[in-house]
């Protein structure tokens, strides 16, 4: 296989630009369907870009198919694009399922702002904790008071046959 000349062709460059540009325009919208269509367009644009990066048009990359003097197009770029095409299909399906679910739950397929994120931002603006962190709170309990709460699950069934009920359960360390 002779190495292809790499010079890009202007029409393909234009197609890449239009596909990606309109794709971005759609991607930034709220309805998931339009977001999805935007993604599909961008996918097509990027696939074309990979194709152009592989070099100029040539014979199909099948051994023995091309005339000897005509160079083959780059098979590596094509293998990557093929992978990309199929993955785009899978992604389309997944986003569609999300859109359908959103429509089922909310009656529309628009991407709303994340409520939890907004709450965290509000709390941060107030310098209030958005969650409870026991490691950071100052309880005001002394070490002694905390230690008095500590007890182990210890032996209460020793050989002299006393039942747990005989243990001094009214004490802080007793079997609870």
């Amino acid at each position, binding site marked *: 296989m002779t190495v292809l000349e790499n010079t890009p062709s202007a029409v393909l460059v234009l197609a890449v630009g239009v596909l990606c540009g309109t794709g971005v325009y759609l991607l930034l919208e709220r309805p998931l369907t339009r977001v999805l269509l935007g993604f599909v367009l961008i996918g097509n644009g990027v696939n074309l870009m990979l194709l*152009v990066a592989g070099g100029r048009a040539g014979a199909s990359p099948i051994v023995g198919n091309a005339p000897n003097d005509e160079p083959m197009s780059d098979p590596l770029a094509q293998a990557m694009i093929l992978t990309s095409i199929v993955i785009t299909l899978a992604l389309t399906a997944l986003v569609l399922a999300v859109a359908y679910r959103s429509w089922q739950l909310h009656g529309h397929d628009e991407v709303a702002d994340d409520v939890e994120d907004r709450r965290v931002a509000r709390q941060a603006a107030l310098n209030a*904790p958005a969650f409870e*962190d*026991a490691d950071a709170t100052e309880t005001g309990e002394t070490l002694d008071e905390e230690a008095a709460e500590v007890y182990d699950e210890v032996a209460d069934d020793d050989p002299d046959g006393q039942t747990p009920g005989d243990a001094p359960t009214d004490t802080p360390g007793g079997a609870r």
Partner: protein
Amino acid sequence: MLPVLLIVFLLALAAPALVAWLDRRAFWVLALGPAAAAAYAAASTPRVLAGDPPVFSAPWVPGLELSIDLRLDTLAWLMLLVVGGVGALVLLYCSAYFKRGAYGTGRFAAVLTAFAGAMVGLVVADDLLLLFVFWELTTVFSYLLIGHYADRKASRRAAMQAIVVTTAGGLVMLVGLIVLGVSTGTWRVSEVVADPPTGAPAVVAAVCLLAGAATKSALIPFHFWLPAAMAAPTPVSAYLHAAAMVKAGVYLVARFAPALAEVPVWRWLVLLLGGGTLLLGGYRALRQHDLKLVLAFGTVSQLGLIVLLLGLGSRALALAGLALLGAHAMFKAALFLVVGAVDVATGTRDLRRLSGLWRTMPWTAAAGVAATASMIGLPPFAGYVAKEAALEGLWHDVTHGAGALEALALAALVVGSALTVAYGLRFVWGAFATKPVVPAQGREPVDVAGTTPLVSRRQPWLLVAPPMALAVLGLAVALVPSMGEHLLSPYADLYPAGDPGHLVLWGGLTPVLGITVAVLAAGAFLFVQRARVERWQDALWSPRGADVAYRRTMRRLDDLAADVTAGTQRGSLPVYLGIILAVLAVAPGLVIASGLLRGTTVDVAVVPWDRPAQLVVVAIVVCATVLAARARRRLKAVVLVGVAGYANAALFLLHGAPDLALTQVLTETVTIVVLVLVLRRMPPYFTDRPLAVSRWVRLALGVTTGLAMMGLTLAAPLARVATPISVDFPGEAVEFGGGKNIVNVTLVDIRAWDTVGEISVLLVAATGVASLVFLRQRGGEVLRLSRADDVTHPDTHTRSVWIAAGSTVSPERRSVMFEVVTRVIFHVMVLFALFLLFSGHNAPGGGFAAGLVVGIALAVRYLAGGRYELGEAMPVQPGILLGTGLFLSAGVGLVALLTGNEVLESFIHDIHLPVIGKVHLVTSLFFDIGVMLVVVGLVLDLLRTLGAEIDRQSPVPGSEREPEEQAAREVAR
């Protein structure tokens, strides 16, 4: 050494099963692990003494300089004895301490044994990074043990505090270790110590290592985690927080002091950390009421003392420090175990409520008194011998012209020892003496009057014997001090400076003896005046400074995290996408623009077109996409995007990529089918959002991104100056892949790993779609005609002539024409798919295309005959197809391993079959079949979920009238 380490870890793994089988008696078996370690150390004594330490070496991760280097020198020998011996005793103690079937005993036993293993590994590790690995393991296990009662807030907090503090120090230590390794060029601990670095690396390493030691051994200002860690069960306190884990920091200091003690910053830091901790711990131990807290602060204080002695860098002090390390392990572990026994017997550890135990628990009391005597340095116990040696060494230094450092250390030692005497006496008095009992505040008064002890249960001997053994050992070793000196002095000789010290029971009437007597007297005075001392402490200083500082720091950290989150997580998808795209457009875009315009990167060259037909197709693409962006109607937008997709396929074909064109056409078809299936449920128009400003922003960003991508497209091919790898593909495809279609061989052979990853993505996506629509289970049932009981209009007038499930569709939706066409083309399409599959290796086609064709054939059946038709056409769960496909692709690739080839390597085989003749079989065909199955599974999943299941959930009005719906209409009328 390695077998010992493995035994302990294997026992840890077996612990849950053992506990399930033997309950708490399992601890007896587990105790064998640490006992084996101690026995190994004892058996190796002659070799260690002879200066021929046992070593072991095996590579682990050579690229990271991480190897399993183990070495048992004097220091490791002593630590191994301590860790193994105390560990075995504590595990035995556990078997009587916890009640039968106590909460989480299996996990506790496993973690405690594993901790012993980590500790064994830590002390024998001779590789800097292996040392760090075991260091962090002890941190993690300690976290789990402190948080053993995970349902209690105090436990969780103490555990979190301990792990945050010790891990932070551990990371700093890692920096120090790496500095040591890089600056000396060796990662062997013994070699680093023998040939230490100098200058800046030594200073950095000294500071970093001391930071690690300070957090681990609870030196100021990180001492606060250790008293809080008393939330752990008492045996854990005895082992981790007296004998083993907190000794890890001490061990680190002892390990590197011979190498780094000459660095001035090391010695001053050691004085500051060790001396300060010694005083602070002793001071705070004086006013604790919980026996464990008395011991915890006592431990803090003693750790400071040991670090001070080992770190100052003279031989005499090192010998004293090492002796004290051993003595401390014995007496402090014994004291904790005594507290546990008291706790078991009385149910409290509050010294204000304990009285008269010396009569009711005589053996426990004897062990406690003996251990305390060792702690406060009464002759003839081990603690006395060690402290005498320390005093002697420092006195010798001070009187022989040493500097302020030694004088300060001596002062700290004297004052600290006096405090030790005071809190030691307080402990013994508090635990065992007969005294007036104070009821706890806020609780109902104790029903025992006056001096009646709280003991209500007999003491199992296993709660008495371990502390007794440790206390007696503390006496025994002290009676033969010269043997101790003989055993430990090889370590002290590693230090470069100072005269060798001695361990003696009776050193004659020297000034040092006078100091000792004065210390004991001062301590006793402090104890006698305890009430005044307590009042004085209360008035003087609120002692929670470091803890509060820690919590405020954590609070600030939380605040900072919240602010950062609020600043970056705006919660709006368009904002996120916009930022990503803006970065794409601005950062590489600017580089490319400047490079292209100035011609610095590449010379811009462009041809108008490769083939004239491209111009026409691109015009179609441009029109379709622009119209799609402007469309307000969903279906219109979808169709226009589809047009752009088909036009793309034409561009592929014109470029010389028939495989791409084929795949693109097929995926575009499936995409449109699926989109239409879903969109029929949604409103026909997009919601209007008359936000003019945002639209202009989007337009601007779209144009910018488009331009940036155009720039990239121009620059990328021109930047390719090297010969591409793909020039070799044709030859390789034929020779190794056994196929002529290079793209297909690339997919199934040359870059087969990519394809395995890709079909895994397909599988995940299919599963995701199914779970989003089916909600409750992966795939629902396969809808066979025989079970079509939810169709209420059994079409009795027409028969299912052309397709199987035609009668389940309402008559007004049926089309005879469509059914006939379906009947004709379905099998043809499947045959065509098989043709694509088998010819794909040499001609356009392959697994992807074949799978998509089968998928489209299924879609046709579904569109013609509804969901039951789909079930009849492909009566299997898509999950089975997906799983089988992935197995065929990835699993068959593994077979190549058996024949000694690489994973996924192709295998060409010519078989001669009767009738058919010679068959050229390439194993990658199975890979392609797997790919096809995955794609069929994906499409089937889409049809079943987005088609059939949505039909079932919300039938289109007027098509399949459900009974409830009809009834509802009746009612409405």
